[in-house]
Structure formats: structure tokens, C-alpha cells
């Protein structure tokens, strides 16, 4: 499928930014739920010119940000769009195989006690 016209279809009718970017969708189409601190990264290293071609500017911007693992919250803040919109756009890139989850938000057993000690030492040294 050409990625070009998937991003902005015309069925959604007149929607107001920022949802125009998501073709009127208010939740991601599929895939795992991305938490605010889930780290995502570009699947194949820095995006090639070819990968960027045909993508909406916002998708391109996110793909560039994902050259290094980055959280959803940092992406939303960097592109100045609401978290929900950023989540949908990142979901699009995941569906297209351009971005993947680098590390999920920690589960209830995490972070480890060792890591917490490190956090304490780090905080005390601030």
C-alpha cells in the first residue's frame, strides 16, 4: 500500500486541526497502547529519504525524532500536538513498519530495587 494517501483521507469530512492530521480518528487504529513513557525508535536506523517520501510533514518529523529512542510524551511535546494525536501518528508509523517499540513503560515489578537505589543516589546528588 502506498503510505502517501493513508495519512490523510478525504472521507472524514471537514475536521479541525489537529484531528485533520489523523483523518478524523480519535484513537489509534490498532496495535499496542502507547503509554506516555513508552520508548519508540525508528525500525531501521535514521530514516532514508525514500522512507520519508510521501509521508505527511508531521509523520516525517516524528520519524526523524525516532532516530534515537524517544518517549511518546517527548514526541508530543516536540511536535506541539496533543498526546492523543501524537499517539495516533506514531501508531501509523508503527503500522507502516517504520517505527517500533524500543521499551515499554515499566510494569508493577519494575523498576528493579537496584535501579531505585540508583535513582535515590542520583536525586540526592542533584
Amino acid at each position: 500500500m502506498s503510505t502517501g494517501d493513508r495519512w490523510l483521507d478525504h472521507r472524514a469530512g471537514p475536521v479541525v486541526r489537529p484531528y485533520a492530521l489523523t483523518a478524523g480518528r480519535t484513537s489509534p487504529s490498532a496495535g499496542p497502547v502507547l503509554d506516555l513513557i513508552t520508548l519508540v525508535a525508528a525500525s531501521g536506523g535514521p530514516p532514508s529519504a525514500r522512507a520519508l517520501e510521501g509521508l505527511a510533514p508531521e509523520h516525517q518529523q516524528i520519524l526523524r525524532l525516532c532516530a534515537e529512542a524517544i518517549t511518546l510524551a517527548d514526541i508530543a511535546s516536540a511536535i506541539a500536538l496533543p498526546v492523543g494525536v501524537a499517539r495516533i501518528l506514531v501508531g501509523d508509523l508503527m503500522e507502516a513498519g517504520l517505527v517500533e517499540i524500543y521499551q515499554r513503560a515499566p510494569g508493577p515489578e519494575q523498576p528493579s530495587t537496584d535501579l531505585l537505589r540508583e535513582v535515590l543516589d542520583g536525586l540526592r546528588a542533584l
Partner: protein
Amino acid sequence: MAFAPSEAAAGPPLAVLKVLVAGGFGAGKTTMVGAISEVRPLTTEEVLTSASVGQDDLTGVGNKTTTTVAMDFGRITIGRHLVMYLFGTPGQPRFRFMWDELAYGALGAVVLADTRRLSDSFPAVDYFEGRNLPFVVAINCFNGVESHDPQDVRVALDLDPSVPALMCDARRTDSVRNVLVALVEHVMTGRARAGAGQ
């Protein structure tokens, strides 16, 4: 496979932690996040119920009506591979929808209590108790009420004896740091206790 971020290539994976800063209107959330981290703009959307429609600047999305809500968003880099994210959220029950997302995978929370309006912290205390999310109560020392006794606040909020309550000045980095240290220690104590009880 995703490639590792360059500076972490040889080290352990980047570790991220999430801490919530909750509290009533004007309790000092933005001040607290700003005192210890670089605050960045971050917004989320609220889907409005018909009851709240008409109060805010609205954007129609199909049959859903949303408005944008600003969150306090700060990050503290600890060492090379560790980042603690702080999210400050409005404390009114109307913003519960944000708390669910924020509480998911969170290390814990700070409830900012303004002694002039203690009841504003009830919803946050109830919420974190209900979700078993470790939290500490930071009693913000506004001018003129510094002499407030934490014990009075504990009683007023009906805090479990294990929940730390400490005085703080949300404008001071060292004071906010002490609150975060208390939270991390509280998380560790809770774990040790859970481990011992098994």
C-alpha cells in the same frame, strides 16, 4: 530490531520512570515541576460531556467534542541512562480521565496539599489509595502558614500511617528533591514489606 540510542549503545538500556504530581487548583504543581526540571509544553485532549460543553474553547470532531488540557511536563536526567518524568495534572475529579493514563506504569505520585484548602487534595488521595499507587503528601508552605503541623494534615486527610507527609516549598529545588527522595524511599519500603509478607 530497533537500534540503541547512540549514547546508550554500550550501556544498559535507557530507563524511564514516571511520577505524578497531583493537587488542587493553585496547590503549586507547576511550581514544583519547574523547580526541579525543565518544564516543556505538553497537552492532552479532553472529550467533553454535554454537561461541560459551552465552558471552554471547543473543537468539534465528528460527534465528539474535545478541548485541549495543558499538563505540566518535566524531565530529570539522572546519570546517563535514567530519566524521571514528572507529570502535573489538574486535581479536579473532572480530570480523572488523565489520571488513569498517568497512573499506568507510574512509580508513584506526589499529592500537593495546600493547607488553606486541604479538601482539594481529597480526590487525589482517594484515587491513589484506590489504585494502590504509592504516594507521598507534600504540604506546600505558602507564606504565613509555614508553622502548620504535618500531623494535623495527616489527620485531616485520614492518611494511612505508612504514607509519608512532609512540609515542602515547591519553589525550592532542594525541597522538591527531598519530596521525590521520600517518594522513592516509600516505594522501596512498600516493596520490602510486600516481600517480607510473602
